[in-house]
């Protein structure tokens, strides 16, 4: 059986030549992961649209994929940049409309942290935005603090403290 990474390389090459069938195969193999990323980073409401945006962007940029990294990691970067673009818009909007209640004291409000029996994914979605992004990128996706710092335009120190904050909040869902 041909490993997925080889299939990816072949299909990516075909897609770069305009083969949308090959691109659909790439979509089928990776959509769950990209959708999971979008859902955890941006919430369930925007996940479908961001997933579509990410694949459309990937199609446009696929000529830049040189096969040096695995297609999956490349696609991931593309998706993160789409999701973060969306995030920045929302963040700016939020700053301009109302201060986020979480940021004041760096502490959670009760209802979010103590809901019992919530599944882990739902708990992640309910984390404050910054803590959620850092947690997803670090603990779920395996990026390093200095990489996350650059993606989110924060310091590595903030990334570390937000990660800790997220993990502390998520303890409540372990029961």
């Amino acid at each position, binding site marked *: 059986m041909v490993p997925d990474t080889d299939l990816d390389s072949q299909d990516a090459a075909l897609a*770069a*030549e*305009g083969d*949308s069938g090959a*691109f*659909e195969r790439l*979509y*089928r193999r990776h*959509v*769950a*992961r990209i*959708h*999971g990323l979008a859902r955890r980073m941006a919430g369930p409401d925007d*996940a*479908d*649209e961001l*997933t*579509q*945006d990410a*694949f*459309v*962007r990937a*199609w*446009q*940029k696929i*000529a*830049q994929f040189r096969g040096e990294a695995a297609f999956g990691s490349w696609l991931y970067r593309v998706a993160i940049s*789409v999701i973060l*673009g*969306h995030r*920045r*818009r929302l963040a700016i909007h939020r700053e301009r409309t109302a201060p986020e209640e979480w940021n004041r004291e760096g502490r959670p409000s009760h209802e979010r942290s103590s809901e019992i029996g919530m599944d*882990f*994914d739902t708990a992640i979605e309910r984390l404050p935005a910054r803590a959620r992004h850092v*947690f997803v990128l670090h*603990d*779920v996706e395996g990026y390093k*603090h200095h990489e996350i710092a650059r993606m989110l335009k924060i310091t590595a120190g903030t990334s*570390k*403290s937000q*990660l*800790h904050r997220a*993990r*502390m909040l*998520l*303890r409540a869902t*372990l029961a």
Partner: protein
Amino acid sequence: MTDSADTWRDRLSEYLDEALEDSERSELEEHLEGCEECRETLVELRQVVARAGKLVDAPPARDLWPEIAYRIRETEEGERHESRAGTAEAGSSLAGRHGRSFTFSVPQLAAAAVTLVALSSGIAWQIAGGFSARQAEPAVPVAQAPAQTNLLLASRIANNDYESAIAQLERVLNVGRDRLDSATVRKVEEKLALIDKAIDEARQALSADPSNAYLNRYLVGTMRRKLDLLRRTAALTEL
């Protein structure tokens, strides 16, 4: 909990990630021996990290492909359309689809924007010329406003050229829009709607008071603002 427990508790994630300096790690381990609460917290944090690593990605509830396929096709068709219009010479010589995303947009969008300016004349030039034309040809002061008939004629000419200029730019943008962030596209569309609303209001006001020199001039100015925004957005696809 003591202050020191609080301080160390805040470092537990770093401890878990093996990100502490040797000296800090020993100090923290020393603290852990005497602090049950921190030991418990550490166990829980480990569980959180372990669960994060085991998350399963479920596919989306509905199939997202048809819309992606549609958007991809739309991009392709837009490009073919542009190519037929003879504006894609620079890109067409490049191999396959590799130049697609870039060679296509950069010179052509800029060229299209320039063409628009060249297309227009008279008052339409005032519209299409955007901000700098405005400076070169300052708005007519109220007291020296031209006669009503001239204004109406001018605004009809302006309207015709303007509509075709807008239509052209919108076509250009339609091709280029996928190169822009979707949030940016939404934002620009939102602001275009704001200008359209202003244009509508000015038109309505003008239909009730056709001889109003200010409204005539204002309508032209606002239409020009729309053109200017479209042109600036087209330029963005070059970034």
